[in-house]
């Protein structure tokens, strides 16, 4: 075997292992052939050949104009990152496009006033009105996360006319020119209480869930979103990618 063959076999087996161990998740977009080539210091052609082989062995699928994805089995651990709605795919807090069917179930919406905690989080004064949206996020109809989102009404005066089970909240915020583009996030793990257990269909009374708090700013630096998100760690994986190159 030539050097390249050895290398190709190694790279291939490591990709397969990553798929099997769900380092690469079903439906996930893989780094480009170019990125892989750089990562392993090999030529793009070699990576292309490896991908071809993995495609023929049903590990990967190639979608024209989009890239190469991990093939989805029938059901599996679904998405990663956090169930936000941004279209921006890579490197963000946000879900990459996984091809799973995401739907929302609205638990309630309404106006909050005179709640110091929320006013403080959104940088408002106590008497300012805040609009809250409580939703369950489902992937292929299974609950993945529950999200409590709060936005200042003064940016979104007609928000109560929309149903965010069907409309993307971020599309709506964008239409008002207040799409959040910068986030401060805090992630911890917490114990799920009774209500969360019920909503997320958690198996037992002592279940641990991911808890992520987002503060979102629009491009002018306005604080436009405060969200508390609880998600199932067995369904959603929290990943961070940093790249300073």
């Amino acid at each position: 075997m030539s050097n390249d063959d050895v290398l190709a076999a190694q790279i291939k087996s490591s990709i397969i292992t990553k798929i099997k161990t769900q380092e690469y998740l079903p439906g996930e977009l893989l780094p480009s052939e170019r990125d892989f080539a750089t990562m392993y210091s090999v030529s793009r052609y070699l990576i292309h050949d490896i991908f071809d082989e993995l495609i023929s062995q049903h590990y990967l699928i190639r979608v024209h104009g989009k890239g190469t994805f991990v093939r989805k089995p029938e059901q599996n651990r679904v998405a990663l990152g956090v169930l936000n709605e941004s279209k921006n795919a890579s490197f963000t807090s946000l879900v990459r496009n996984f091809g799973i069917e995401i739907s929302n179930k609205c638990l309630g919406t309404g106006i909050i006033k005179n709640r110091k905690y929320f006013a403080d989080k959104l940088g408002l004064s106590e008497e300012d009105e805040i609009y809250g949206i409580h939703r369950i996020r489902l992937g292929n109809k299974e609950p993945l996360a529950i999200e409590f989102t709060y936005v200042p009404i003064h940016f979104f005066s007609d928000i109560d006319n929309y149903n965010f089970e069907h409309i993307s909240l971020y599309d709506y915020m964008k239409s008002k020119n207040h799409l959040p583009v910068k986030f401060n996030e805090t992630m911890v793990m917490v114990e799920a209480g009774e209500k969360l257990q019920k909503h997320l269909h958690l198996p037992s009374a002592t279940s641990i869930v991911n808890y992520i708090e987002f503060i979102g700013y629009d491009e002018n630096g306005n604080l436009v979103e405060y969200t508390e998100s609880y998600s199932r760690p067995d369904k959603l994986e929290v990943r961070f990618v940093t790249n300073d190159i």
Partner: protein
Amino acid sequence: MKKKLLTLDVALSKEIKYMLKEEHYLPGDKLPSERKLAELFHVQRLTVRGALNLLLQDKTIISKPRSGYYVAPKRILQSIRNFSLHSEEDSGQLTYELYDFKKIEADNYLASEMLLPEKSKIYKIVWLYSDDTQLICINTTYIPEYIYPDLTQQIAASAPAIDLITNNCQITLAKSNQKVTLLYADTKTAQILNIPVDSPLMKYKGLMYDKQGHLAVFFENNMLIDRFGFIREVVL
């Protein structure tokens, strides 16, 4: 009429959180009694209990039997940019000791995690982190031999692995891929951390690459879930 968005216990738990912040409560400080809180916020004792329960679940507070509720120890918040616990601002409260250092050959697991051939030479460095009361994290760092050919236990003990690489090897860590998952302590981990087997733990692991895209470090941290958190700033 529409149902109220916030139930009473949730609303009160947030008010109490705000009070703790505004009135500069510190870890270990005692909260007012249930009765006092009920008076303060004009709610029923039952609501207070519900709210405190929520705060117990997210580890804002802890309860001491027959004594009351106290502000929980502060979580150590790790910025996703800084790769080393040692260098965190909060690390003043941490002590650490080198637990293990050896040169090993990559087994199947490491080879696949690190995308290296099996049997590659790797340094394994294990640090234990404690706060003032207990062990809170096992940090295992794997460094391929090609990154630091002459690494010794003495050098390894002198500084956190990441600092060694950046300072001694002049490597700039430019890319990383990290994830946080939930796992349950196996026998060995439980023993080291002195916790029951199957206790939930946060597993934080990641790969770091230099500017050329070569793997420099693979790390795995097993952390007590109520002692750590992660913070990050994301700009789209």
